[in-house]
Structure formats: C-alpha cells, structure tokens
C-alpha cells in the first residue's frame, strides 16, 4: 500500500543554516508517526514546508502516491493536511465556531455567515471524536487543554486526514497529555494518520507506531518503540551518549536566604495567580518549582524579583523585607534573575553584547562615574565575560539579536552569575536550547549552589527539576501542593501532583 504521505529529499536552507538536508519521510495510513529531535533539529521547519508556510529549496511531496505542490496552507488543506501549531492559531476574541469555520465558512446568500450550521457541524464532530467543546464560547475564556481540542476540531472540520501535531504536550500535564494520546489513538482508529512532533522520549515510547529521529536537519534513523530504548533514542537525537545524570554533591545548607510567606499575587487580568504560597530557600540549596505552565510560577517569580506587585503576604531576602521593594533594590541586595522569556525580558536585542552585559549594573562604578558612562570599563568587562563564559560572538559590539539562542542565554547567565549574588532565581533557564547549552547551564547553576548561593529554579521540564533540585515544590492552581526532597521524587508522582491529585492519594 502506498503511504498516505511521502516526503522525498526535502531541503531547506536559511541564511547560514541548512535547516533540512534531504529529508525523506513516509507516513502510512492509520499510524502515529513520531518525529523526534532536539530543539533546532529541523522538525518544525519540515512541517512548515509540508503545510505550505515555507517553500522547500529541493524535494517533492506526495499524497497517496500523487505528487502535490504546496505553495500555501490552502494547498495543504486541499490535500487533506492539517496542522496543530506549537503556538495555537486561535483568535481569542472570536468564538469557537468562528475560529473553526474561518477560511471555510458556512454561509447563506451573499456571504452572510451561517453560524448555526457551523456550530451544528462542530457538535457533530465533537461527539464523533469525543472532543467536548462549547461552540458558542469565546476562546479567551477556555483553558489550554480545551483550546487544543478546538485546534484539532479545526482540522477535522476541514476533513483533514493527515494531522500534524507540533509539540502538542508542551502546555499539558502528563495526565492531560495521556488524555491527548487517547484522542490521537481514537483518531487513528477512525482512519486518520498523524505526524507527532516532540522532543520528549517518554511520549514517543508511549504513543508512536513508528519513530523518525532528526538531528541537525538530517534523518539519522527510523525505528519503532518496540525496537528502541530511551537511551538509544537519546543517543540518536544528540549524536553521542548522553549522561542524563548530573554529578551532584549533597547540599551544604546555610541560613535561609529567601523567605516567602502567604504570598498572593494577581496576574495581568487581575485574577489570583499565586494563592497563599509559603516557602524558604536556604543558602547552598536548589529549590525546584515544578508545575504545568500557567499555574502561577511566572507570577511567583515576578513577585520575588519585584516585577509584579504583591497583594498579600511577605517576601524577605536576607532578613530584609522586600515585599514592596523595587526590582533594582532586590538586585542590589544580591539577587540574580534568569528570566523565563530571554528575548522579551532578559536582553535588549538591538543593543550590543557589551551593553547587555552591564544592563543591571551600568549605573554603578566602574561603568559610570556620576552620570557619565565609562565606555572603556564596560568594554573591558565585556571582553572578560565573553571569554569566561565562552560566549560565541564576533565582537563585544555585535548586537545581541544576532547571536544564537544558546549564546543569548549565556549572555544573561554571564551577566547574572558574574555579580556577587546570594540568591539566584532561574525561570525556565534552558527552554529551547540544545543539549550542549543545557548541560553547560546546569553545570553553572550547580556551581552557584555549591558556592553557597540559594537557588530558586522554576521549570516546566520535569527532567530538569529532578536533575537539579534538592527539594521540589509542586505548584498547582497557584498553591504549593507539596514539598518533597529531591531524591525521593519520581516523575510519575510529580506528574500526579502537578495534575492536582492530592498528596495522600498521589503518594
């Protein structure tokens, strides 16, 4: 039987990068085909080519044995290809119905929308595939899991039978992910075929029928879960044996550095995001905060670093009350912050690397004398830090925006770690980085801890939390539902806690 979809020798070059290098891929009818690879391996590029968002430099696409040209998403949709993007493509101020029918609207005469007819179709689909949604609801009012269902319904509404899911579990708890996998199974049973993009080994082993591994734009191998092991897949992904464990000494606990008590913080829409949280971080330990994205971790970090006002409760840093302190005061007390969104918060992309390296200290000697900046001193420091932290940049005067993601993160790490600090707040410090950079940054964080710094680590990557943390606090719906010693925690257990299962039942 001819494969439902076949990609032959797809090649895509970006300036300076070979994103896809003669990639071949075939998808059989009714299978879930996992496309596994690190960040930057070229998975998303390949799928964007399939969906007509990019044009390939070389290569051909066949659907059911017939060659097709995909110049735009419309061509892909016409060929029965549908895609759920990593970042949802939903319009918050539109209803579910409007989002689903957009581009393929049900209309009456003169292009007048027939919302009722479309809603009926959606109900039909949602019953058939067990995807419960309310067609009249506005997207902005729906939780993430439901939004993802809407995305899937969008594809089914267009009668797509080749579904591409790009990192669909990034925003889900392990339990929600399992729910998604059930849906994927039932879709496949009803004759759909799925390409499932991920970098998480567990998911691949759980759900895929076949696995293709990409590395640096090339297919490095194809296998099935039965033949493969996690270790083998990891090696294929990274290109060398990966030590999933980090060498770690037992912590030498010091006095409490950060004390958070009954903290309540609102989010941007004035809803309670952090709901009465209390914890302490001691010198020389790493406290990891685990949780699914959007359970208040972002707001917690922002409150601790002075970027969001505190509604109730108190925060103390080194015996000083910083509940109402400005970010600058907190920084000067010896706190460092690796922000969650490095391009948004951590860097000024249009500024030089040198300027970014003094972003928090530019007003202090030796970088400034009075109000006058001292260019030489800034440049001198920049040179030293570039060397010490191995930042790959042509010159300190290169703009930060032209560096790679890993090097951008190194600029932030260099800036924050080079100061004499007592507290390190690291939020998603390795998101989107390649394995080499991840290892490097983990090493640096452990060094800080061993030198007596208190570390508050927030990450939605469970592996990262488990590897680094001395204690793990699980956040769910704005509360810390459990604090457990790092060595006792297991992934499954944490997953249950993250999904809101009470500690007694989970344990």
């Amino acid at each position, binding site marked *: 039987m001819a494969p439902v979809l076949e990609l032959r020798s797809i090649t895509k070059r970006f300036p300076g990068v070979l994103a896809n290098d003669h990639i071949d891929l075939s998808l059989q009818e009714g299978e879930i085909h996992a496309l596994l690879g690190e960040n930057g391996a070229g998975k998303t590029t390949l799928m964007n080519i399939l969906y007509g968002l990019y044009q390939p430099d070389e290569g051909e696409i066949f659907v059911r044995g017939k060659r097709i040209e995909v110049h735009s998403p419309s061509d892909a*949709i016409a060929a029965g290809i549908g895609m759920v993007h990593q970042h949802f493509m*939903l319009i918050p101020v539109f209803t579910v119905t409007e989002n689903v029918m*957009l581009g393929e609207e049900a209309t009456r005469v003169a292009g*007048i929308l027939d919302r009722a007819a479309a809603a009926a179709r959606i109900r039909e689909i949602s019953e058939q595939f067990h995807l419960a949604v309310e067609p009249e609801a506005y997207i*902005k009012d729906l939780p*993430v899991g439901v939004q993802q269902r809407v995305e899937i319904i969008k594809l089914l509404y267009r009668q797509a039978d080749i579904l591409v899911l790009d990192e669909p579990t990034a925003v889900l708890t392990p339990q929600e992910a399992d729910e998604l996998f059930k849906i994927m199974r039932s879709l496949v049973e009803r004759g759909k075929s799925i390409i499932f993009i991920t970098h998480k080994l567990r998911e691949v082993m759980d759900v895929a029928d076949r696995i293709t591994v990409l590395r640096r734009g090339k297919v490095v191998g194809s296998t099935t879960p039965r033949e493969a092991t996690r270790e083998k897949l990891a090696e294929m992904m990274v290109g060398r044996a990966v030590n999933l464990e980090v060498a770690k000494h037992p912590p030498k606990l010091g006095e409490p550095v950060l004390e958070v008590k009954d903290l309540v913080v609102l989010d941007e829409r004035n809803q*309670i995001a952090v709901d009465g949280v209390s914890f302490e971080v001691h010198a020389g330990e790493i406290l990891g905060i685990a949780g699914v994205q959007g359970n208040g971790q972002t707001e917690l970090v922002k409150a601790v670093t002075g970027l969001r006002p505190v509604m109730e409760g108190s925060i103390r840093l080194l015996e000083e009350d910083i509940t109402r302190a400005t970010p600058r005061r907190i920084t000067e007390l010896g706190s460092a912050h690796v922000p969650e969104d490095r391009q948004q918060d951590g860097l000024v992309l249009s500024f030089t690397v040198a300027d970014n390296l003094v972003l928090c200290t530019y007003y202090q000697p030796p970088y400034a004398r009075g109000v006058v900046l001292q260019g030489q001193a800034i440049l001198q420091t920049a040179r030293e830090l570039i060397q010490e932290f191995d930042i790959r940049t042509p010159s300190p005067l290169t703009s930060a925006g032209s560096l790679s993601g890993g090097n951008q993160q190194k600029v932030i790490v260099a800036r924050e770690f080079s100061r004499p600090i007592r507290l390190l707040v690291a939020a998603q410090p390795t998101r989107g980085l390649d394995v080499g950079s991840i290892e490097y940054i983990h090493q640096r964080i452990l060094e800080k801890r061993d030198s007596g710094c208190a570390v508050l680590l927030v990450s939605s990557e469970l592996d990262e939390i488990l590897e680094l943390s001395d204690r793990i606090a699980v956040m769910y719906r704005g509360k810390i539902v459990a604090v457990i010693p790092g060595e006792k925690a297991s992934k499954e257990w944490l997953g249950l806690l993250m999904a809101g299962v009470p500690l007694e039942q989970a344990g």
Partner: protein
Amino acid sequence: MTTTALRRQVEIVSPTRQRVMGIVFLVFGFAIWLIFARQTGADQVTTFALTPGGSEVVLPDWRVPSAAALYALAMVSVVLGGVQLARGFGRWTNLVLGLVAGIFIFGFLVWAAADKSLNLGGLMNTTLVKAVPLTLGAMSGVLCERAGVVNIAIEGMMLSGAMMGALVGSVTGSLWLGLLAAVAAGALLALVHAVLSITYMTDQIVSGTVINIFATGMTSYISSKFLQVYQNLNNPGIFQPWPVPGLSRIPLIGPILFNHNLFVYATFFFLILLHVALFYTRWGLRLRSVGEHPKAADTLGINVFRTRYMAVILGGMMAGFGGGYFTLGSVGRFDEVMTAGRGFISLAAMIFGNWTPFGSFGAGLLFGFADSMASKLAILQVKIPSEFMLMAPYIATMIVLAGVVGRAQMPAADGLPYEKE
C-alpha cells in the same frame, strides 16, 4: 494562552473606579447647580424651537422653566452620584455615565438659552451634517484598522478626495464624475499606504505621515498652480438636498434626518452596510481575523496581504468619498487645507467608537454637536469662549483612551506588519 479556568476569579470592577465615577457624577451635579442653576433667575424660561430652518412642518416651541429644570437636573445627577458612591452601578456604570453626561449637556443648553430661544431642531440638524464627514472618515479608519493597518492618513486622503472632486467635477461638469474622482484619489493614496506598510513593512504611522505630508503639499501645489489661477477649474457646484418623499414630512425627525443631500443618506447606507459586512459575513470575519491574528488566518488559507490591501483600499475610498463631501456636498469649491484636521478627529471618533461603525457614528455626532454648539455660543452671547467647546472632542478622546470609561477594544494586531516567514 489562557489559563482562566485555573484561576480564582476576583471582582473585576475596581473600587477605585467606582469611587472616581461617583465623584464624577457628583461633580457634574454640583456643576449644574453651582454654575448653571444659581446664575439663572427664578422666573427665566428657556425656549427650545423644534423646527429646523426651512422646514415645512412646524412644531410648537418647547418652553422650559429654566431654574426649576436645572435644579431638577442637578438633583438627579447628585442622587446618581450618591448611589454610585454608596453601592455602585456595577456593569451599568458606563450607561449611567452617558446619562449623566446627557443631563449635563441638556442643563448647559437650558442655562445658555435661558430667557432666549435656541433652535434645538436646527442644532440637531447641523450636528448631523457635521457628523457626516467625521463618520465617513472614521469608517475609513474602521476598515483599515479592523484589518490591522493603522491609518493616520485619513486626513490626507480626505484632502485629496476634496481636491480631486472639485477639479474633476469642474472639468467634466459632472458632480458624479467628480465624486468618482474623489473616491479614486482616496483609493490611490490608500494604495500607496498599503504598498509601504504591507509590502515594504514600513512603520504604519510613518507611512501615514508620508501620505499626509504628500497630500497637503500636492493639493496645495495644484491649488495654487491651477485652481486659484483658473477659477472655472474650481467650481463644481454641490449635490442639492433631496427630501425623502413622505419621511421628510414627519415632524421633528423628518427635517432632521430626511432632508439632506446624497452624502448624509450615503453615510446611513454605508453605516448599515459596513456593520452587517463586518460582523455578519464571511468577508468581515476574514477581515477581522487578519486584524486580530494574521498568522492564524494565514494557516487557514486566508491571504493576509490581499485581505489587508483590500481593506486599506476600501478605507481609502471611504475617506476619499468623505473628502468629496467638503467640495461637492458642502462648500462647492476647494480651498487649501480645507479639511482642517477633520481626518484626525475622525481617527478620534473611531477610537471613541471602539472600532465599530455605529460607535464611530455616535462619536461623530458627539463631536459634531460640540462643533455646532461652538458656533451657537456666540449667538447666545454665552461667556464661554467657543474655542473651549471645540477642544472638548480632543480632551474627551484622551480621557477615553486613558481607560476611564473602560478599556478600548482595539484589534490585537493593529499596527503590526505581517511578515510571512
């Protein structure tokens, strides 16, 4: 990505805002009492004429005892303010605010025309007429911005429309061809705006500024080179009023709404058309999707560039049409810089009207009212400089933008160029 369901809801109406609003109502009430009522003699009577000039249907005048009416109005305002402070009107607050503002304006009229006669019918009539170019301009803005392209070039497009309308109308001797030229001029500048801001991804404000400078320079250039030299090139005549048979004979409403020229009726028509098209058709859904989340629209096979081009060019045509009003619907001649910033007030009206056609019309009426009142003030010999009346729309827009009356709901991708990777 939303996380609403994960979060505890808290009361959204902030107590500060409730208090501010209450104080605002009180201030309005006391202003009526202290400024208007106390200056009004007990036996004074305000006369409102209800028949616009030149109307065939005559209604009797409406006579109001000034002082009594003002005290009553002040009372109502103060009571509303008290209630607001005490327990708040919650989600009705904005409606009450509108009511109080209306009371204040009415109080102002009663006071200004105490012992005199004010032609309320005429006032409404001029308000509507003055609202016409503003509403057309604002609808131009709605079209562009709903598709995600900021248009601060309404002024320039209107000015060019006015000039081309006068020129072509005079040369061809046909008002209709003049109107067509006005629309075409707007469309042409809009095309430039589209090329710059959509294709070349120039900052949309910069692109709009380019068009404004260009239009001002070009129309003045042609005006002083030709229109002022050859008078017969600048004499297109105007569309004459056409009373709607039957409807125009309805008392009060008839002469106000149904005794106008083409432009007023066209405004009504476009209002309804645009409202329906934006919110009830496939065309509108796609246009709005491009203004909210162009990438999402793109992944569903909607051509973002084409949709934006279409919206901007239609917007330009609307502005050109509005520009035609000045020469072909009102003055009958082109003067340099004759739009005098009305394009920018249109922009304000669009924001005031929350990016909707009918909202814009409402704002246009409000601004038109301020404008007509300014000229009435001198006649009534009120000691308020008319300039302050003319400032009101601008200040009101700034207050709206500051979020005092709730957040404006602009399209999410407004002003952002769309870059296809």
